[in-house]
C-alpha cells in the first residue's frame, strides 16, 4: 500500500463516486417516499397489470408489505446491481488498463514502488470505494426512512441486506479490476470487465422471468440470494463467504497476473 498513491487516486476518482452516490440517493429517496404503508394493496394490484414474467425478471415481489422488504424488492432487486455495476466497470478500467493503455502508468513505476504494491493500492481503493458507497447509502436509507416513516425500517435487516449487496458488488468490482490488470488495452479490459457482469445481470433477469430458465439465475452471482428473504430473516452467511472468497481470489489473481506481465510502456 502506498498512501501517497491512495490519496492521488482518491483525488482523481471521488467525483465518479459522488455522481453514483448522488443518483442512488435520489432513487432511494424517491422509492422511500413512494412507500405507503396503508396502501400496499393498491400498489400490488397495480403490479398485477404488468405481465408477471416482467415483474419477476425485475425481481419485484408482489408479496411485500413492510418498508424493508419493499426496498429489498424494488430497490435492491435490480437498481442496486445495475448502477453500481456501471460504477465498477468505469472505475476498474480507469485504475489500471486505461493508465497502461495511455502510458501514464510508467510514472507510477518510475518510483521505488513495486508493481504489486501499486496494484494492491489501486485494488484497495476500488474495494474501499464500494464499501463507502454502500455505507453511505445505508445511512441515507436509515435517515430518510426515519424522517418519513419513523420506526418503520427494520435497521438490522436493512443492514444485512446492504452488506450482502455490497459484497456482490465488490465481486463485480474485482471482475472488472482483474480484466483491467490482465489486458493492456482499454478495449479488451472494458469488453470483458463489462461483458461478464452484464451477462450475470441478464442471466439473473432471465432466470427470474421463467421457471424453465431458473438455472440461469442460480448461476448468476446476483442470483445467489434473495433480498426479500434476507429481510425476512434468512441466513446468508454461506453466500457472503462465497462472495468474500471470490473477491479475494480475483484480487490475488489480478495482482499475480499484473506482476508477471509485459507492460508496453
Amino acid at each position, binding site marked *: 500500500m502506498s498512501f*501517497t498513491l491512495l490519496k492521488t487516486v482518491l483525488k482523481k476518482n471521488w467525483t465518479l463516486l459522488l455522481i453514483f452516490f448522488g443518483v442512488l440517493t435520489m432513487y432511494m429517496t424517491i422509492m422511500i417516499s413512494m412507500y405507503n404503508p396503508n396502501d400496499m394493496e393498491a400498489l400490488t394490484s397495480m403490479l398485477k397489470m404488468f405481465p408477471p414474467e416482467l415483474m419477476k425478471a425485475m425481481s419485484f415481489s408482489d408479496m411485500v408489505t413492510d418498508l424493508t422488504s419493499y426496498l429489498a424488492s424494488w430497490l435492491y432487486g435490480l437498481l442496486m446491481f445495475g448502477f453500481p455495476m456501471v460504477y465498477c466497470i468505469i472505475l476498474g478500467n480507469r485504475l489500471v488498463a486505461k493508465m497502461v493503455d*495511455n*502510458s501514464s502508468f510508467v*510514472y507510477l513505476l*518510475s518510483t521505488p*514502488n513495486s508493481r504489486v504494491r501499486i496494484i494492491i493500492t489501486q485494488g484497495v481503493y476500488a474495494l474501499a470505494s464500494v464499501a463507502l458507497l454502500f455505507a453511505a447509502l445505508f445511512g441515507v436509507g436509515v435517515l430518510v426512512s426515519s424522517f418519513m416513516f419513523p420506526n418503520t425500517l427494520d435497521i438490522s435487516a436493512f443492514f444485512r441486506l446492504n452488506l450482502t449487496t455490497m459484497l456482490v458488488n465488490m465481486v463485480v468490482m474485482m471482475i472488472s479490476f482483474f480484466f483491467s490488470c490482465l489486458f493492456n488495452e482499454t478495449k479488451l479490459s472494458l469488453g470483458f470487465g463489462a461483458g461478464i457482469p452484464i451477462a450475470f445481470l441478464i442471466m439473473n433477469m432471465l432466470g427470474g422471468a421463467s421457471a424453465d430458465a431458473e438455472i440461469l439465475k442460480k448461476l448468476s452471482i446476483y442470483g445467489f440470494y434473495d433480498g426479500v428473504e434476507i429481510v425476512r430473516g434468512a441466513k446468508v452467511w454461506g453466500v457472503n463467504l462465497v462472495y468474500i472468497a471470490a473477491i479475494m481470489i480475483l484480487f490475488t489473481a489480478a495482482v499475480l497476473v499484473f506482476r508477471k506481465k509485459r507492460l*508496453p510502456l
Partner: protein
Amino acid sequence: MIEVKKLTLKYPSGKGVFELDFSVKKGEVMGYLGPNGAGKTTTIRALLGFMHPNSGSCTIGGLDCSSKAPEIQKTLGYIPGEIAFLDDMNGNEFLRFMHDMRGTKDTDRQKQLIEMFELDPKGKIKKFSKGMKQKLGIITAFMHNPDVLILDEPTSGLDPLMQNRFVELILREKAKGKTILMSSHIFEEVEKTCDNVLIIKDGRIVKESDVQTLKNSQRKGFTIKPADIASASQLLQNAGFEVCNTADDAIEVFVTGENIDRFIKAAAQFTILNFDVKTQSLEDIFMQFYGREGK
C-alpha cells in the same frame, strides 16, 4: 553500471531484440542509436523491468532489472519516449506527487531544473504543449539526483535553445560521474555528449564504438577538377585511391584520415584547376549503418 548480457526479448510479431550484449560503465555516456523500430525502446523496456526478457539478463548497479526494479528506481531517472502524465493534474501537483512517491527529501534540485528549463508548471498538464511536457519529463527524471539515467529521445519537441540547455545538463551530470544511456536521433547532441555509441538495427547491435574513433573513420571527400582528367584518374588509382567521376570535368576521391598525406602527394603530380573538400559528417557515418543489412 548497466550490464546487458545475451538479452533476447521477442514480441509475438517476431520483432524484438536479439542477443544484445553491451555495458555502460560508471560515468560513461552511451548513445543508443538506430532507425525507428530497431529495438531501442524494447531494450529500455527490459532495462526498466517493464518487460521480462525471453532469455539473457540485464542488470543496473548489479541488481537484476526484472526482479529488483523498485530498488533500481531509487537511483534511476527515466524519460519515456512517449510521455504521458497522469490526467487532470497540474505540473506542480505532478512534481509533488512524484516527489512523495519517491520519498525524496528536498526540492532544491527540482527548483533549479524548473529555472534552467524555464518551465511554468502551474497549468493543467493536459493543456501543455509538447515541448513543455518534454521539459516536465526531463525535470521529473533528474530531480531526485539519480546515479543512472535512461533517456529515450530526451529532446524531442524541445526548441534549439532548450536542446542546448539539455546538452549542458548532460555534460554537467557526466562531470558528476553519472551513468547515462541515451537514445537519440539528433547527431549533434550525440556528438557533443556521448563517449560511446551503440548502433542497433533490426534488433541487433551492428556497431559499438567510441565517438572519437568513429570520427576518425570519417572519410573526407575531395572534388578535383584536373587539367587532364584521364591521366589524373590513372595516377590516383595507381596510388590506391577510389576515384569516381562525378561530372565530365571533375573527379571525387574519398580518403580516410591516415591517408591524407599520401593523397596530397599523389595529387601534386598533376595540374589542378579547382579543388573542393566535402567533410562527411557523423550523420553520414550513422546513415551507413542505418542503411546496411536492411535490404
